[in-house]
């Protein structure tokens, strides 16, 4: 029915049961304009991914990048096993900024500490402890969809 220029349709669940026949345009996975997730189509790490929050841009950004790159390109049996030194350096740096990187025990489990969003590397359990404030940083970053567009 019509309401001036605004049309209103009420639908029941049954109305919407049949799958949609609306056509969507095929997405180009290599579209240079699109925001990408943590890993770019080229295989490199997207340091600007909102999922990383401020990790790559903070005071310990350099150490984080080194550690994470090492891990990402690692081809060892236990991925990242040769990167211990980098992760140690990162931890040392982080300990200097307890306000930014609070050392909480329950966040020992991975880069996406707590209940956060990072769709990246959930399997990366042992390597680093990413503190809660990074979670906050991620949430601050905004809407960019890490995984999809």
């Amino acid at each position: 029915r019509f309401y001036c220029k605004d049309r209103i349709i009420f639908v029941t669940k049954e109305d919407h049961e049949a799958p949609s026949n609306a056509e969507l345009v095929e997405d180009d996975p290599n579209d240079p304009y699109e925001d990408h997730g943590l890993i770019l189509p080229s295989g490199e790490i997207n340091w600007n991914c909102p999922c990383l929050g401020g990790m790559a841009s903070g005071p310990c950004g350099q150490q984080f990048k080194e550690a994470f790159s090492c891990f990402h390109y690692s081809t060892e049996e236990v991925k990242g096993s040769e990167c211990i030194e980098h992760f140690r350096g990162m931890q040392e740096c982080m300990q200097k900024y307890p306000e930014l990187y609070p050392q909480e025990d329950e966040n020992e489990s991975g880069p996406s500490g707590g209940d956060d969003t990072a769709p990246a590397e959930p399997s990366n359990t042992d390597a680093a402890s990413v503190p809660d404030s990074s979670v906050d940083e991620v949430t601050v970053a905004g809407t960019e969809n890490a995984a999809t567009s």
Partner: protein
Amino acid sequence: MFQCKTVWNKMAPLARASSTLCRQSGKREVLRHVRRPVLAHQALMSSGATGGGMENTLYVLLVGATCLGGGVFVYRTLSRDKARYDDRLSDISSRWSEQREQGPAQAEPQQGAADPSITESVVKEVSPEASETAFKVPTLEVATEAPAVEAPVTGARITGTCLTDAESADPSSLGESAEPGLAAWQNVTESASDPPPASAMSPVEPALPEVPEHAPYLLIGGGTASFAAARSIRARDPGARVLIVTDEADLPYMRPPLSKELWFSDDPSVTETLRFKQWNGKERSIYFQPPSFYVSPRELQTVENGGVAVLMDRKVTHMDVRGSKVKLSDGTEISYDKCLIATGGVPRNLQVIERAGEEVKKRTTLFRKIEDFRALEKVSRELKSITIIGGGFLGSELACALGRRSADLGLEVVQMFPEKGNMGKVLPEYLSNWTTEKVKKEGVTVLTDAVVKNVSYKDGKVQIRMKDGRVVKTDHVVAAVGLEPNVELARSAGLEVDSDFGGYRVNAELQARANIWVAGDAACFYDIKLGRRRVEHHDHAVVSGRLAGENMTGADKPYWHQSMFWSDLGPDVGYEAIGIVDSNLPTVGVFTKATAKDTPRAVTELSGTGIRSESETEAVAGAVAGAVAGAAGAPAPPPQQKEDYGKGVIFYLRDKVVVGIVLWNVFNRMPIARKIIKDGEEHADLNEVAKLFNIHDD
């Protein structure tokens, strides 16, 4: 041509007479080789042969007066030009000499051999004419430069001028010895490089200046866009040194909680801590990062691995694009390689309030910053009645926030606006009406179709009179009538300002000129999909700030990822939107009935986030919890008020293409909405498109 002829024929009797005479006399004259044929009427000049003596004199007087006037005008123009020329030279010399303020190392390359002589000669010329204030800064700067100057003679002369202005107005006391001059310089150096309040005469050491003289990345403005850009730059350019210059006294913070979450906090010290508890219980500060994240501006140029420094309480007043540098309000100059302008805007005020006098203006809040929040929070506890003028996002959110407190505080909250309903310019009329009802339920007295005619202060109350005669008496007014983008630097920087939307005009890559980008509220940019626009939402500031940061580090990407926005009007009504959401456009709304699971509170509890844009980041489009069978609204058309627009999707169309979507109490579907807008396709049946959102699921 023919018209002419007919007119001529019509006028024939007249024409014949004059033309005949004309032709006749013309012929005669021509035949007589006289240059100018005398026309019919032999109109005589006033000083002709028949003119009397009186007329002669008058004639002479007139001509004489004209010549005199002309002469005076020419003289004044010339002298004004000379004055302007002198001013300009003094400007140049002052700017040049300020450049040489910080340290010999930087000063050396900028110092040309010819410069000292030019400076001093100009300085000498200018000093008698230029004003004290114009000269003080340059001389202070010139003084500090002295240690680097090789020629002692030049140094002495500059000293003389410095001491002159610092101590007395006598321009002729040259030839002072260098030693006491040096001491004076050093003192002056300290006070020149430190901001005025902290002019400690500490012993001289090669201290780094508080304000770095060069910043590879200079971000003007310390808001959301600027912070997002800083983060982006640091992520992409390892070791980048980013300087943010803001005129606020606060580090970068996010604005949405100032009109929403901070008001819902139970913590009485919230105005101090500025921490808010999100629906899910997690607490965070409105500041993007604690102070330890930033490096101090003093150390920016030297700190290993670079960092982000924030210079607060400084306003950029002038931008020199050719020289790639900016000037601050205290005269300091900072040069840059890449610059971002993210100056946001200032809240607009109503003209009637501007003209209403001090008593009214004292009781008016233009809400935007932390200090405005603090002031209004205090007012809400102390006064009995607050009126909000404006029915858009800010006005409605503040009305709801205050309305919720109204019962506890015994506060009367009134909201008035010219539209027919809340969000009247954004939502289609039926939804706007529905929203207004909800706002009223929050305890707000809503006055629609209200145009403010006059505001005055009478009997201890602010009286607002509307055009239709209604009067509202209140203790305090909040004006939420829009934002005026801050384009103060347009003139000095030679930047284009958009006349339709306001703000700096930039291209799709957010670039205004070479090495200058603009992001956030102040940017009028070209959106490849939706056309030129200017967006004043939080997420747009984040997206555009990020994009500007990427482009400043060489990405050259256009605005592509469509930003979204959201609003919660109380715990039961919330929506997310994307694209062009203008109620003037034709819309198609597809609705179901809402269940208890569809309120904003429920959604954030489930997804564990507070700020709406984040819940979109984490969830891939799809279910957050198990599907819930939402009962559908029956299609029977009862009167409008009883229609329950609980849950649905509204499409905004422009030339049959969807350019905007509002997700009404439907959450975590933004990626699909974004995709539909990105496609820009014409869809024949929007109900089919609505199916993509699975609005019945949860």
